[in-house]
């Protein structure tokens, strides 16, 4: 799958509190959550973001709380994928579980600026900066994660498992 979008770039340690503040956590409608995405560090984000855009950040993206509302809000805001130098572990799991692609690539983050246009090939882990005419690689997912993704994510993987007749 190929994604093409404009870059919104952030720094180190973007925590889940600024991705979606605690005051909105009783909301479970993704579209409503999406309206408040990033509002405490970038109030204009929801006005600027267009469907298919790409979020790029430095290290430890998604640190802090376990709220799944964070990747849900990012996805509902229109962002198609997040690229960072590293992710906090709970956020990484949550993003994959709700179908928000997340890629780890130091070189892509260093070689990308706010407003650039990126083309991301998820299957190959290839990231092309169309504005700067550069090409980067993302770290491949571990085998188990690839299995999980190709099964359609954790929800689908578990659905099939629960439907399977039990053999003793």
């Amino acid at each position, binding site marked *: 799958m190929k994604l093409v979008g404009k870059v919104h770039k952030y720094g180190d340690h973007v925590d889940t509190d600024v991705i979606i503040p*605690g005051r909105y956590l009783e909301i479970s409608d993704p579209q409503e959550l999406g309206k408040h995405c990033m509002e405490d560090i970038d109030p204009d984000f929801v006005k600027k973001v267009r469907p298919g855009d790409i979020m790029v950040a430095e290290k430890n993206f998604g640190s*802090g709380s*376990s709220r*799944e509302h964070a990747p849900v809000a990012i996805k509902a805001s229109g962002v198609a994928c997040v690229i960072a130098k590293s992710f906090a*572990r709970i956020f990484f799991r*949550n993003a994959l579980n709700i179908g928000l692609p997340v890629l780890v690539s130091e070189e892509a983050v260093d070689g990308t600026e706010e407003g650039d246009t990126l083309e991301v090939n998820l299957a190959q882990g290839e990231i092309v900066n169309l504005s700067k005419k550069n090409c980067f690689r993302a770290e491949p997912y571990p085998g188990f994660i690839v299995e999980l993704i190709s099964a359609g994510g954790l929800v689908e993987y578990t659905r099939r498992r629960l439907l399977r007749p039990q053999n003793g």
Partner: protein
Amino acid sequence: MAMTLSEKILASHAGKKSVTPGEFLQVKVDVILVQDLTAGLTIESFYQIGATKVFDTSKIVMVIDHGVPAKTVQTAEGTRRMRCFARTFGIPYYEVGRAGICHIFLPEQGFVLPGDLVVGADSHTCTYGAVGAFATGMGSTDIAVAMATGETWMRVPSSTKFVYRGRPGKWIGGKDLILYTVGQIGVDGANYAAMEFTGEALQYLSMDDRFAMSNMAIEAGAKVGLHRIDEKASAYVKGRAKRPYRVYEPDEDAEYEKLYNFEVSDLEPQVAFPFLPSNVRPISQVGEITIQQAAIGSCCNGWIGDLRIAARILKGRKVHPDVRLIINPGTPQIYLDALREGMIETFVEAGAVISTPNCGPCSGAHVWLLAPGERCIATTNRNFVNRMGGPGSEVYLSGPAVAAASAITGKISSPLEVQE
């Protein structure tokens, strides 16, 4: 093969003789925690995966602590859904007035025990590392799957050993040790790793202090923060356990990715400045920081030992006229103990507000929020941008001694400024 503490617990729950860091496992879980703030999405995911029953009703605990008392009708509706779900599936549900803060309630009541594998829909689930449980926070979908199947997937983390040497000073607690540690290694210093706490300094710490340390393992990005079971921990667990458990010890020759040695005999009280828990300074280098609010409580420092420290400092003194001091006992049992020991009287006479056992202002979703630009010294665990309230508000993290002393002076202060 030699294994660390976390590797041993993971291996036993995966039915394997040994495991190595980086390996993916399917593990059986002993306890699953669900709290109200993340329950909504958990319930939705549970239905999405087509589950019709939970794997074992005796292994799931549902607690409401974030949104109590209900702040809006929407909050009340959320907790009503949670109650209905619990009743439908026969899951134990602990009502307001009978639970308090989940991460204090579960160890207090013996739900989480040494050698357990615990997952919770809250990032501070790692608190139970103080009783030797491999306990970690996850998102709602992961927890829904664990509730339906009794299993989850894990990547075996590498382990990092933290050795604390010496004897901590009078006003130094577990919070100071863990703030110092996060300050040294950074908020991603243990990302995806297991922290193992050891060293002779820890024997001087109470269980409450050890819970505070494990609680903030996530603030260094860690998956778990494990303590070993010594006599003190053993005594704590024995009076509470209602089922058998197994104490694991790391192998002497186990491999650790990193090793840190910290001498803590001369450690000063520590304060984390906005906006990261790693932005830590010793109290002597804090300078003049006036505050409008002091908050003592949370899953990090809402334990009885924390209230005793605060009471010792506040006894016969008054909270500064420009400061509001909020005290949240962690559970009804702690509230009752504080009452019987005369602490509630001390707090009220000093001019503090006693809040119902709940998460208080920590998550910024609820009560005692800060106005724009206000500052709070808090015994909580996060000081991110706008975490506790309005734009430009600031949270400084400390242990209960500094928070209580600061409430009296009106600025961030060492307990030595008001006490011998």
